[in-house]
């Protein structure tokens, strides 16, 4: 349970980065959402053995992290945290797919290994891009941008409530589990029955607390719309940002710069 809380508090930390004041932070949220979307689409559109083609795409997260002055150790830790999940999904690839795909000297590398590596790379890239989007924009503003891009308000408000609710649930979970640990004197008394009633209580308390939160929101003038931190106007810089990144992704995806570079070199030194 404690792990949940730490993860959620970390999520709040991510939101805090969104209050930075760099150029990337200042870009129109819609533009950032679109560019991230293009990036993710380009990355996941590769076939399962692709590695070379993905490498140039690392440029985007690296540039964004540097320009937004995000703390690299923090993001790296977040990425490491998701590693087990990806490995869980891809663990069987090397076992199932044993056809040799590459040969490095006398070592044969099977297709399974390559596809696992590719999966890891694609996951890092896409999840990294999403984290960077939240850390430079903030969840509320992202939802607002989605709304302005045409997503119905019902969905975006639901999304926001879900996001808020997650914090509440985690905090209540921590409280309940702490209380239970204290009374169960260590690790005994953790039967399935006590777990059941714990969950029941947890849901009830979370629901009550969510209702109280809703009341306080109402009394601060909430009328069903969330308002983000920035009121934005679409600037030239935003347009440049959108076009340059989109074109870059398109070029990377279609031209495969690594191969291009390779053929250029072989062309230059025949």
């Amino acid at each position, binding site marked *: 349970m404690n792990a949940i809380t730490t993860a959620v*508090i970390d999520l*709040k*930390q991510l*939101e*805090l980065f969104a*209050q930075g004041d760099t150029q990337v932070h200042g870009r129109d949220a819609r533009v950032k959402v679109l560019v991230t979307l293009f990036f993710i689409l380009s990355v996941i559109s590769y076939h399962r053995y692709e590695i070379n083609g993905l490498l140039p795409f690392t440029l985007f997260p690296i540039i964004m992290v540097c320009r937004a002055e995000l703390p690299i150790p923090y993001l790296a830790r977040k990425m490491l945290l998701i590693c087990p999940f990806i490995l869980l999904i891809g663990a069987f690839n090397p076992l199932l797919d044993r056809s040799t795909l590459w040969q490095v000297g006398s070592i044969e590398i099977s297709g399974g290994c390559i596809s696992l590596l590719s999966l890891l790379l694609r996951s890092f890239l896409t999840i990294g891009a999403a984290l960077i989007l939240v850390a430079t924009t903030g969840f509320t503003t992202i939802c607002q941008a989605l709304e302005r891009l045409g997503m119905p308000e019902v969905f975006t408000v639901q999304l926001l409530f879900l996001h*808020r609710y997650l*914090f*509440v649930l985690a*905090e209540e979970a921590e409280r309940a589990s702490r209380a239970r640990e204290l009374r169960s004197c260590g690790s005994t008394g953790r039967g399935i029955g006590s777990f059941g009633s714990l969950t029941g209580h947890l849901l009830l308390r979370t629901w009550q*607390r969510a209702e*109280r*939160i809703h*009341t*306080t*929101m*109402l*009394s*601060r*003038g*909430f*009328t069903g*719309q969330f*308002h983000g*931190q*920035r*009121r934005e106007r679409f600037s030239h810089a935003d347009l440049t940002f959108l076009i340059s990144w989109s074109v870059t992704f398109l070029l990377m995806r279609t031209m495969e710069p690594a191969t291009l570079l390779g053929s250029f070199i072989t062309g230059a030194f025949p």
Partner: protein
Amino acid sequence: MSDAIIRLENVSYRYPDGTAALTDCSLTINRNKRTAVLGANGAGKTTMFLHLNGILQPSSGRLFRDDIPFEYSRTGLRKLRSKVGMVFQNPDSQLFSASVQEDVSFGPMNLGLDTTTIRRRVAEALGAVAMAGLADKPVHNLSYGQKKRVCIAGVLAMEPEVIILDEPMAGLDAAMQEELTAVLERLHAGGITIVIATHDLDFAYGWADQALVMQSGGLLAHGTPEDILLRPEVGNALGTIPQIAEIIHSLSLLGIDLRGNGYLPRTRNELVAAIAAVTTREDTP
């Protein structure tokens, strides 16, 4: 403009489960006054408060702000809630944003203000509760007293005419209580009407200009604290009387009249000063 900023007229309220929390409650909150709302657990203080900014609508009876009946339309409610700010007992139910600044700006944003105005209001509100230095701090790392002050700032940033606080002193240590009292004093000096629900009779006695005593969903008594808090029926309802008043009463039985200079001490400091004054009077022949 009349003295009454908010008035309840025969308000009754029944919770969905059938509990009659308010029964025929009529009371007045006066402009620019410090009002203390007293009453035993379950007397209906919180329920009454929830009516003051339109969270709950009376089952019967009416409410008035500036002698105009409450309007429960969307715009009416938004206006009402920007004028009547409410600070709830538990800060954790109000604070849900990542940072202090973001949370305080939630109210002004809902009012549809522009960014510069919001920035200004947030800075002013945080200054008023002496939290300006912690604007960028994550909310979950704050102490209980700091959270409480952030909650107050969140309401202040909406620039209300009335601030209602439900048991603001509960859970605060003595120093924090004093600090919070000072914050409230500044707000009051700035022309804001302050209403507090409290179980701390001594605090109410020393602080309030006006006291409202509730009992089983209705108003039992209202008036200045020294007038009503010593009445037997009020003492019965609250289970006690202010300590200061009790001490003065005991001293008067001993023949020591602290009322000598025509004024009754209401706080500990005033009492100490009055006793000191009496002793020096007796020392000098």
